[in-house]
């Protein structure tokens, strides 16, 4: 940028909306800690095979009947279960499932919800009516029964599970986006952009979408914790990821029977879920405060 340096007379920092939000986020220590924790968890999940090789020296599904119910110690850092499988290894691999499903679900419900909400809010009229009644319908169905039904119909793996959870989740995103579009649409730049010959799709994608992006980011970050909980609950009920693939939820199911004998089998996945969800929610709140200070309660 050669020209910029010469011509800025009274140099003031170009504070964009994103810069300001980032500054506010950085100043929030609890939020940043939670954010870093999530990044670390995600990194661990991504590198699970590496951890298996280097750190724990176990594979998540390797059965070793000589070392069942091992207490946490040198051989098994966090103990082992009734089939002698290493708990730490299974927790690490379980993170892949939990975080992977959460990410996929957020991506799915955001893209569907944003599209529907954008179209409904932008065009209004009967299109809005039809789409929003559809959303009302989806949100009126008790989610747990829908999950149970769909889990029976489709053999759940990470992808179908994400699709199942997102099939409900997109509704609230659509409502959120529609509301935001309705308000942004009133601003003069929309008609100004139309006056230069921009098409509807260009207006929606290039002009309205960036303006609703902050609420999307907030919705996404607040949604993650909730989805992890839902996913764990489905796994726990046997409606989600099926054993022997480890997930935090089905590890809990498995451990029920050994609650008094080997408490760590219950405690460890429980604590992991708890910390992850707490971190997600704290980070989500921090994101919300950073992007939309008006919403701060």
């Amino acid at each position, binding site marked *: 940028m050669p020209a*910029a340096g010469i011509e800025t*007379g009274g140099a003031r920092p*170009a504070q964009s909306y994103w810069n300001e939000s980032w500054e506010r986020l950085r100043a929030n220590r609890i939020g940043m800690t939670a954010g870093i924790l999530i990044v670390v968890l995600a990194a661990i999940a991504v590198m699970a095979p590496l951890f298996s090789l280097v750190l724990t020296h176990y594979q998540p599904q390797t059965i070793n009947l000589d070392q069942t119910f091992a207490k946490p110690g040198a051989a098994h850092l966090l103990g082992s279960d009734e089939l002698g499988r290493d708990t730490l290894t299974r927790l690490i691999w379980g993170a892949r499932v939990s975080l992977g499903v959460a990410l996929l679900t957020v991506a799915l419900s955001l893209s569907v919800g944003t599209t529907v909400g954008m179209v409904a809010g932008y065009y209004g009229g009967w299109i809005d009516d039809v789409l929003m009644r559809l959303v009302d319908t989806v949100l009126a169905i008790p989610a747990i029964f829908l999950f149970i039904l769909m889990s029976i119909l489709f053999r759940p793996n990470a992808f179908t599970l994400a699709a199942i959870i997102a099939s409900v989740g997109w509704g609230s995103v659509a409502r959120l986006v529609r509301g935001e579009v309705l308000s942004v649409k009133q601003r*003069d730049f929309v008609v*100004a952009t139309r*006056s*230069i010959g*921009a*098409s509807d799709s260009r207006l929606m994608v290039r002009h309205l979408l960036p303006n609703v992006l902050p609420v999307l980011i907030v919705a996404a970050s607040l949604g993650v914790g909730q989805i992890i909980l839902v996913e764990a609950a489905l796994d726990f009920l046997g409606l989600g990821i099926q054993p022997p693939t480890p997930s935090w939820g089905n590890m809990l199911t498995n451990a029920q029977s050994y609650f008094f004998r080997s408490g760590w089998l219950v405690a460890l996945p429980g604590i992991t879920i708890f910390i992850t969800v707490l971190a997600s929610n704290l980070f989500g709140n921090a994101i919300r405060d950073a992007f939309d200070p008006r919403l701060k309660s």
Partner: protein
Amino acid sequence: MTQPLLQVQDLHTVFSTKEGQVKAVDGVSFELNAGETLGIVGESGCGKSVTALSIIRLQRPGRIVGGKVMFKGQDLTRVSEDEMREIRGREIAMIFQDPMTSLNPVYRVGWQVGEPTRLHNGLDARKAFSSAVSMLGRVGIPSAASRARDYPHQFSGGMRQRAMIAMGLTTTPHVLIADEPTTALDVTIQAQILDLLRDVNRDFGTATILITHNLGVVAGMCQRLIVMYAGKIVEAGPTADVFAHPKHPYTWSLLRSIPRLDAETHEPLKPIEGLPPNLVDLPSGCAFHPRCAFRVEKCSRDVPALLRVGDTQQSACWVTQSGTELKGG
């Protein structure tokens, strides 16, 4: 007589509301010649903005229910949406009242000012940005190269309006519609923006439609002027003649309601009695008659047509059409 650049013929635009149908534009006809500046004057809600928006078919949620907008041999009310998009921004550009909200807050000013050239002239992002920078320089943005990298909230109101004008000009359109371009600005900035519009008109030869409620703005800018009231044109003519001898009581009252620096005696200003009419339920006959000091019996019964009165003007008034001069105190 050369063909006018833009011809609006008997345009009707309506809005459907719960209370009934609002005829926001009710049979408006006018012409715009190449290179001229035409003023459209009227108070809030008289249909001047809707007229302008209807020209480029952005009157939504209103509907154009009649009339033609002839531009370069085609009727803009009939061309396809795709063709219309090609005309918007390329042939006819528009700038709006409130520069504070007319720019998208999430993009750099240069990006936005360059957007019409990306849409219409096929420029890539880099070229569009540099054309935006040079246009921003021409409309008087200091250090345009660095200011183009700013976001709209870093611009003052006057600078944003300059940026909007620059955005309108990047494609060198034939018509520039300025809808109350100075209303939201303070007085010194108003004068600068009007000077800029005058320069644009001279340097680019862009025909300009200037919409305003401010007669003073029209006096300094426009060769011809149209006065609208309740969706109709009530008077039209060369600015100097209309100011000297208004041929419609509404124009006459408007001119008496503005202060004059050259007045010999300090007369109190004369506001127009009454309120603007409710567009859902217009008075019978001439819509202005309840507020008119010259009304005769016919005024509440029959709607006057816009007819030639005097040598150069047109007026829709039974009184002046019958030859009566508007006088009084």
